[in-house]
């Protein structure tokens, strides 16, 4: 992952390129020869990130996918260890060089957050790292935000390039592609048909993103995350979580949720240790063998999810673990809306402490 960190942001106006949509499709097709290309393609839920060979099927105009592309680095299921006759061996992934094309800036930013989560405290998760090291992210700036978007309230923007190697903006007939890292620069340099962008085109891209930002609703986000703990014992959690059914849809859809389970499987001397996504929304997550559960109610579990993002994230990785993609709002079967929760918390704290 060293290459990633050393990558600097080149002076964008110098290096920005214009690629026609036709050339883009050709370029993705060429990339797919020796790369895995993960891109948004049509799905009954709108669009979904999937490995694709067919560059023509890639959607530029999609809204947020039902699931984030986090699986590119942190798949729902992966084998960590293989067992044979009582001996464990590591099964580190050796993925091909992979291009994640078309991630929205919020999703790209989430990948940067996951980097920090999985490299915390000097303990590097080698499985996530192996995928991340071989991943090039081409983010696609937003011009039409979705109905649940609130990235601008949590430090993001429709043209944020955090976590991306290249930031692309759809200009209609063509895309403006700006390198963000050396890896991105190298990818662009090899792009057939690209020409240097003109100042007017860069301006046009900025205008589009600015217009998109205008459309995104603002949500009050805690400026002093530590103060959220003042509301820890508040009764508002019971009210907020009253309709919560206790499923894990929000956490699995979330681009920054990263909790996991480790489970063994075996049959006649061979077996494996599997890592799978897990969710703080289910009671089993924290249930002790003794029967004691430190988070015995949906109130406590929903509180954990919200505070993990907005109070604990700033302590552990120095930023809120939310990119404002709005997926949790979109997928929640009982209509729980994180934006309303934040507004509620804001009122609670502003109103002189726990309500």
């Amino acid at each position, binding site marked *: 992952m060293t290459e990633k960190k050393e990558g600097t942001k080149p002076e964008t106006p110098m290096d920005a390129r214009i690629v026609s949509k036709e050339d883009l499709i050709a370029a993705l097709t060429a990339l797919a020869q020796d790369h895995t290309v993960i891109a948004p393609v049509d799905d009954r839920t709108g669009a979904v990130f999937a490995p694709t060979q067919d560059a023509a099927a890639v959607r530029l105009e999609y809204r947020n996918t039902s699931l984030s592309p986090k699986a590119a680095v942190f*798949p729902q*299921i*992966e*084998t960590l260890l293989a067992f044979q006759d009582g001996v464990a061996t590591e099964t580190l*992934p050796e993925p091909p060089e992979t291009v994640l094309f078309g991630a929205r800036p919020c999703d790209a930013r989430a990948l940067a957050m996951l980097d920090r989560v999985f490299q915390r405290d000097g303990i590097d998760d080698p499985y996530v790292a192996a995928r991340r090291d071989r991943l090039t992210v081409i983010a696609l700036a937003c011009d039409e935000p979705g109905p649940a978007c609130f990235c601008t309230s949590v430090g993001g923007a429709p043209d944020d390039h955090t976590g991306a190697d290249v930031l692309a903006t759809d200009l209609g007939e063509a895309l403006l592609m700006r390198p963000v890292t050396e890896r991105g620069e190298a990818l662009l340099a090899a792009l057939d048909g690209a020409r240097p962008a003109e100042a007017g085109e860069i301006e046009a891209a900025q205008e589009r993103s600015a217009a998109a930002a205008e459309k995104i609703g603002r949500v009050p986000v805690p400026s002093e995350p530590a103060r959220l703990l003042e509301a820890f014992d508040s009764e508002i959690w019971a009210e907020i979580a009253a309709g919560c059914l206790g499923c894990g849809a929000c956490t699995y859809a979330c681009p920054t949720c990263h909790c996991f389970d480790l489970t063994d*499987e*075996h*049959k006649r001397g*061979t*077996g*494996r240790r599997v890592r799978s996504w897990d969710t703080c929304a289910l009671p089993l997550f924290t249930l002790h063998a003794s029967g004691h559960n430190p988070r015995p109610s949906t109130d406590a579990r929903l509180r954990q999810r919200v505070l993990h993002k907005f109070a604990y994230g700033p302590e552990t990785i120095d930023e809120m673990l939310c990119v404002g993609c709005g997926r949790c709002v979109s997928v929640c079967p009982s209509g729980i809306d994180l934006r309303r929760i934040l507004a509620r918390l804001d009122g609670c704290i502003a109103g002189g402490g726990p309500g």
Partner: protein
Amino acid sequence: MTEASERRTDAQGDWEPRIAAFLCNWCSYAGADLAGVSRIQYPPNVRVIRVPCSGRINPLFLVKALQSGMDGVLVSGCHPGDCHYISGNLYARRKFALMKSLLEYVGIEPGRVHFSWVSAAEGVRFAELLHTVIESVRELGPAERMVRRVEAMP
């Protein structure tokens, strides 16, 4: 614990079906026993799981057996009216009818999943039933559907 099973073969290396048979203690298991002590020949392809009553059989046992790589499943209990617990098999009959239909609906070959009634006195019927079941599974070949494919996982 439930990878695709290695395929059972006979001495010639030909595939032989493996059947999980859930038999109630009072009738069908006794029927199988009778077949044994009467020296009635039946093929060795079956793994018998004795249960107290066909009513004890959670229909998911069948699905689980298929997932674990069994090529076919047989459930057998007392004839209707003869249940040791009066009505266990009658409740079970409703459940089995639904599960059988559901499995076929989703595409599990009907010849893999069998339900029948065998009494303690029906050693011959048990042996014949097994022949029927094994032949119907043999015709279908090794199970593929529903079998867990760990090797297919990343």
